[in-house]
């Protein structure tokens, strides 16, 4: 197989090319029982991916390995192992700049090692997808789930989406390529899941058949043309003033930084469509007790909602699905009834609490409580959420 085997109807591996709408919303689905790592393979298999570069680090090693199997099976165009995460993130940038639909995966310390690359990704407007399986980054070393690393990603200019479970990881991975590649968006996308809680958790998931796949990426619709012998990475690097010390240079960089963030903002309508909204709200509409969370924390909050309902206490869960762009409107609308907003998190700093507090500043009367907060690999039993509710509100537990 090679890219020359691609036709208008089929990709190089013989999969029928379909629209993202068909793949996500219309194609018949069947039930499977698999882990987040396994579902990553299933999603990538259906995305006509040109290139992937990997480096092993728990808990994403299985996903990286399985993408390698896709290459061996002829579904992914090119695949190799980088020398470390800095190398990997540079190499995927090279692939994407050359016009390839590119994906990679990493976790925790790998993310931090590669850090310089992420603002470079967004600055060069490559629509590369990073599937981030969050893991602790503190010393002494931990391999356990903890999403502190996400706080370092927030201002890199990349889009950041957060999947709650195995099903969402599948659907988001497919939608992520599509939204990131929109010519008026065209920025990198980081699809986050909590390591172990999703990567290693086995559960039921509905998948479309694997003989269909997304249309290939069209690099010539990109805001910056792909590199060739005349075109440097990030087309404007060719312009002489960019690396100088003068006002026009500063103005260029300032406006470009602004443009990258505007591009992330322009993804909202597409993300609303392909994700069925930037936030999902479940529970009692008029509840005074509101949980705002993303990823596994929203799972735990749903469990807390169910326990509170058994005791006759109303609550609701606002699950944020995009972190960049941040769903300000959706959050404000969903917390109108709130007297108490709890932000349960799997990290020590409470980055989502900060985001929520900043977003609602001057707009909401609700008391925002950034708890419970667990870290370092701890789980968040529903009992710990209920305890915070009973200690901080008028609600009485049984």
């Amino acid at each position: 197989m090679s890219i020359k085997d691609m036709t208008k109807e089929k990709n190089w591996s013989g999969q029928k090319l379909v629209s993202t709408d068909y793949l996500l919303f219309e194609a018949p689905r069947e039930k499977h029982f698999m882990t987040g790592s396994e579902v990553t393979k299933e999603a990538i298999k259906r995305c006509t991916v040109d290139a992937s570069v990997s480096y092993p680090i728990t808990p994403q090693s299985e996903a990286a390995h399985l993408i390698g199997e896709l290459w061996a099976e002829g579904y992914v165009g090119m695949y190799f192992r980088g020398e470390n995460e800095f190398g990997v993130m540079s190499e995927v940038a090279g692939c994407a700049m050359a016009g390839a639909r590119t994906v990679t995966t990493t976790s925790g310390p790998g993310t931090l090692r590669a850090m310089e690359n992420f603002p470079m990704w967004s600055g060069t407007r490559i629509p590369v997808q990073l599937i981030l399986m969050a893991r602790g980054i503190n010393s002494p070393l931990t391999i356990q789930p903890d999403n502190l690393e996400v706080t370092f990603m927030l201002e890199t200019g990349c889009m950041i989406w957060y999947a709650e479970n195995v099903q969402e990881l599948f659907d988001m991975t497919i939608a992520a390529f599509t939204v990131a590649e929109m010519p008026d968006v065209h920025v990198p996308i980081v699809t986050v899941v909590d390591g172990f809680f999703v990567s290693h958790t086995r559960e039921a998931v509905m998948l479309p058949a694997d003989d269909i796949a997304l249309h290939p990426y069209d690099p010539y619709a990109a805001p910056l043309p792909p590199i060739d012998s005349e075109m440097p990475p990030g087309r404007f690097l060719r312009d002489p003033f960019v690396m100088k010390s003068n006002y026009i240079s500063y103005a260029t960089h300032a406006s470009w930084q602004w443009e990258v963030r505007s591009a992330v903002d322009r993804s909202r309508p597409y993300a609303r469509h392909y994700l069925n909204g930037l936030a999902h709200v479940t529970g009692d509409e008029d509840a005074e007790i509101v949980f705002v969370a993303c990823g596994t924390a929203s799972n735990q909050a749903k469990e807390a909602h169910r326990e509170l309902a058994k005791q006759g206490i109303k609550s609701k869960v606002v699950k944020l699905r995009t972190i960049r762009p941040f769903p300000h409107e959706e959050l404000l609308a969903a917390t109108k009834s709130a007297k108490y907003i709890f932000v349960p998190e799997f990290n020590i700093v409470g980055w989502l609490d900060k985001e929520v507090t900043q977003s609602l500043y001057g707009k909401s009367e609700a008391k925002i409580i950034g708890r419970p907060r667990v870290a370092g690999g701890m789980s968040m039993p529903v009992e710990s959420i209920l305890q915070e509710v009973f200690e901080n509100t008028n609600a009485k537990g049984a």
Partner: protein
Amino acid sequence: MAKDSLKIRMPALGGQGAVTAAHIAATAADTEGYYAVSNPFFGAEKRMAPSESYTRIGTVPIYDRGEVIYPDIVMIYHPQVITMGKSYTMPFYAGIKENGLVLINSDIELLTKHDKDFLDSMNVKVLTRDFTKFAVEIAGTELATNMAMLGALFGALGTIGKPAIEEGIKDRFLKKYTASGGTASLDSVIEKKFKKKLDLIEKNLETASAAYDLTAEWAKEVGLEPMLEPVSMVDGVRQI
């Protein structure tokens, strides 16, 4: 009273197959029509180091993830979990809920009077058996200990039958082969391995089945109340 969902904690030692057992348990429960989730927890460790896995089974959707801190059932795969504290929680039954169940794989009694008094006060039933001996005698390998533990769990619960366990075991050991089974790449070497695999599955099933019968009998003797609501399926659709 039977619950709408159960949380099962499986503290084991690396290499014993607790991750596999949790995986098969969840697949079997899913096959039976329950909602089910399994996940492992382990450090950057090795054989004989603590390793835990968890299975959650219910007639309602399961959102809860991660370590089971308040379990209904604790399954101890190795005496060292108790004797050497190779557990993520101390004591090994920390957080256990009322009317719970503890299954211990050991050839000797390991509980102190204090342990027994506490578990009695919570109305937790305890079964200590040498499941490894079971595995050695039936499957011819101690590696099947996890299958004996798995059978023991479902024998005690009574709501997930042997056909579902069989499905779970086959799904775990045959999936890759069935996935590529249609292709012409199955050469004789793999066929040979395939036959060996079928043997292995057969032995595993026998081990699980014998342990299932043993605990089903034991549950009657000690008057273990039904722990998990039965699930009813009509034409493959879950009835709630």
